[in-house]
């Protein structure tokens, strides 16, 4: 997030939520937003489903899955045409406005309406509301990113925020709500193929030298493989061993058949988890790990706030924390620097290698969380990014116009429906934890494929009828539930349930920049069983 939850919730006059089912995926943030709306803030929601948040919306844009760029550029067009942009901000803090304006100016709003399925008047209303109150915050999640055009979608959002001067100020910003408890921290600490901790590129000679020295090893300067490519590489014989920590790719990855095939071909599969997951079936070794309540450490939340977790109980049996396991394994592998006394010492090392975390220590975290960048022990942390300058060569924000491109797979006669996937309030990821919490399963014990009432009527389907969903990649059976929140031609499923695994169907096509798979759009067919 460019901003903090606090400043957005307290100061935004407009919330533009797109591709985020906030009430289910980030409930506590949704409380804050609903409170703000009660106090007079406006809300724009764009989503293929009439999600709960839409009930509170001033404008709800029910777009066709995968048409975000068209919608956002349409809004930009209205803002330009009606001169609702922030001239001072554009003049002083941006670059490339002319090109952007020219490109966007050439767009036909009605064509965008046609592509998105959202009436032009609604796009206009949304644009006016977004640009009409200051500050306005954009919030998004995977509905924006899990597309082959994910990067374009984000750039289009950034364009809107730049145009209206909603960057670098309280209550504004472009704010991806991160999905998992420490997805931000995993990125920050370098669990990515192309960067070291603190986003220092592996290809940067200085960084590479610094880490190679620190780790006493020769680290290649070529980025590694993203997860999405590792399994394909395994099928091609390039990857022979995979170590899976706290992850369940046999359920969560797109196009599951390919994943399991890959797992079977490898020489070594290690699974380290709390439970015997679906992926563990394919493992050679399974290691029992400690849960968050059984260890000390830190998480980074969606607003870059580093916070302490503390050991509350002992891990069961011989289970150990991942940290302890790696200390042992590192030593067994003969690697240097794996004899830590505990998490405090690891954090100290992170701070030494990642300048943005230099000021973060366990001592300070006792007083409360700290948002990085936190440059030294007196630095207060940085809840809002880009207050003074942007991370570009000139320090100015760049307008980057993009073109609308359709999703990788469009519905056709054979697969006439678009399947879009998401999450439920009551479950988390592949359900490893939530499905083992009695009450949560009581409240949501089974996955149903949601279809529109119109489609249900046309196909003669009633609630609880079983259908077979097929795509070019696989098939799955599930009960259906006709709902009014979907438009005709759209099917929705979550990916929490292995027995109705939506990822049997999904498309593993990637965004070329972010390598994120297009989980939000694939073509499927459904037939009654």
């Amino acid at each position, binding site marked *: 997030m460019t901003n903090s939850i606090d400043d957005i919730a307290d100061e935004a006059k407009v919330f533009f939520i797109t591709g985020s089912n906030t009430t289910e995926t*980030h409930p*506590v943030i949704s409380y804050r937003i*609903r409170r703000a709306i009660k106090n007079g803030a406006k809300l724009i929601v764009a989503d293929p489903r009439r999600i709960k948040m839409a009930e509170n919306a001033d404008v709800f844009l029910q777009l066709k899955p995968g048409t975000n760029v068209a919608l956002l550029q349409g809004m930009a067009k209205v803002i330009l045409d009606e001169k609702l942009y922030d001239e001072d901000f554009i003049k002083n803090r941006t670059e490339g406005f002319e090109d952007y304006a020219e490109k966007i100016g050439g767009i036909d709003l009605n064509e965008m309406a046609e592509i998105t399925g959202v009436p032009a008047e609604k796009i206009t209303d949304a644009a006016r509301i977004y640009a009409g109150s200051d500050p306005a915050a954009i919030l998004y999640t995977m509905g924006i990113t899990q597309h082959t055009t994910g990067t374009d979608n984000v750039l289009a959002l950034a364009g809107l925020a730049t145009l209206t001067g909603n960057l670098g100020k309280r209550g504004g910003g472009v704010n991806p709500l991160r999905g998992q408890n*420490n997805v931000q921290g995993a990125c920050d600490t370098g669990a990515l193929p192309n960067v070291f901790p603190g986003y220092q590129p592996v290809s940067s000679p200085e960084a590479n030298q610094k880490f190679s020295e620190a780790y006493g090893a020769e680290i290649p300067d070529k980025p590694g*493989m993203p997860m999405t490519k590792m399994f394909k590489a395994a099928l091609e014989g390039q990857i022979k061993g995979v*170590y899976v920590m*706290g992850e369940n790719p046999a359920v969560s990855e797109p196009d599951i058949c390919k994943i399991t095939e890959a797992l079977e071909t490898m020489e070594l599969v290690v699974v380290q988890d709390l439970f015997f997951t679906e992926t563990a079936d394919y493992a050679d070794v399974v290691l029992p790990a400690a849960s968050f309540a059984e260890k000390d450490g830190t998480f980074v939340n969606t607003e870059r706030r580093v916070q302490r977790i*503390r050991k509350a109980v002992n891990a069961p*049996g*011989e289970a150990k924390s991942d940290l302890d396991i790696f200390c042992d394994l590192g030593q067994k592998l003969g690697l240097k620097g794996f004899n830590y006394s505990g998490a405090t010492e690891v954090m100290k090392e992170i701070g030494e290698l990642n300048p943005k975390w230099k000021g973060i220590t366990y001592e300070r975290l006792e007083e409360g969380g700290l948002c990085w960048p936190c440059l030294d022990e007196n630095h207060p942390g940085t809840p809002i990014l880009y207050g003074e300058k942007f991370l570009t060569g000139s320090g100015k924000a760049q307008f980057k116009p993009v073109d609308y491109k359709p999703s990788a797979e469009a519905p056709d006669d054979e697969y006439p429906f678009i399947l879009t996937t998401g999450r439920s309030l009551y479950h988390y990821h592949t359900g490893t934890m939530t499905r083992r919490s009695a009450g949560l399963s009581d409240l949501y014990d089974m996955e149903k494929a949601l279809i529109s009432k119109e489609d249900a009527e046309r196909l003669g389907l009633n609630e609880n009828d079983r259908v077979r969903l097929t795509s070019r990649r696989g098939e799955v059976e599930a009960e259906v539930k006709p709902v009014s929140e979907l438009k005709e031609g759209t099917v929705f499923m979550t990916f929490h349930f292995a027995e109705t695994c939506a990822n049997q169907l999904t498309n593993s096509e990637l965004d070329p920049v972010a390598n994120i798979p297009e989980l939000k759009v694939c073509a499927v067919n459904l037939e009654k069983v």
Partner: protein
Amino acid sequence: MFKVTINGLETEIEKGATVLEAAEKVGIYIPTLCHHPDLSTFGGCRVCMVDTDGKIVTACRAPVADGMVVKTDTEEVRQVRLSNVELILASHNEDCQNCTRNNSCRLQEVSAFVGINQERMSRIRRSVEPVKEDDSNPFFHRDFTRCIQCGICIRTCEEINGVAAIHFAFRGFHTKVSVLGDKPIKDSKCESCGECVVRCPTGALYLTRPETPEREVESVCTYCGVGCGIKIGVRGDRVVKVDGNRDNEVNRGDLCVKGRYGFDFINHPERLKTPLIKKDGIFVEASWDEALDFIADKMSDIKAKHGADALGGISSARCSNEENYLFQKLFRAMGTNNVDHCARL
């Protein structure tokens, strides 16, 4: 600033403050039942009545005036307060022993303060409406015989999380906290966040597993990326409760259903307790040494045969920073950048 005298104690308090706030400032207890500092003021329970300049008013609503003289303990005030508490008790379930809130109940606290006595209570006609308990929610039940219609749950649902699944329904003595159609709460818009249960002053909303923790450990929720501060309640070596941490600036005590109630997995019997090695297609228990040696050998072997880039590491967005750091360190130290995690899912 206004000067206010409460029971002879003088204090200064800013304009707009209530008599209740002024009393709190000087440390004078005024009993309340329907008041909650997180929520808007209601004023229905009438047990906070005090005498301000000779007029009986509710302290929770009455704004202070400059020079106001407040008496919280006149005969008249005592009488009205006592009578109101007696009336609440008249239709309240008497069986405190079987109430999960016994000894932590605000109604008990207020009753003790106003001086409920059996002789007076013997004049009261008791009638507890025999409304069936709503046991539809797995985490908390609704016991209408212990509900005092303070509306705290309703205001919580509307003002804290904005769901407004419940509201007062029906009228007068039959007034009831209800969802659309007076149905079980499970069939409503309720998101089971449990914020109402936390604030209920009596046992009307009670946890189905009301274990009292022996100690609490501050931590952060393990579910979504919001990073809510929690207090893990522990009994023995078991996690029995999770509460929102009101001191945490991210959530200030708020939690969702997963964060508050989804902790069963920690104590779950299916937890892996020992390393397993697959031998001839079957997993067998192994010692840590065996398992780690096996892994180390295999990894070294692959590296030796195919190079370090034949290894891949899939880290986890659910593990800590320190663990992710070590994970990538381990792989990079082995000589490969093939490290990633599930950020994109």
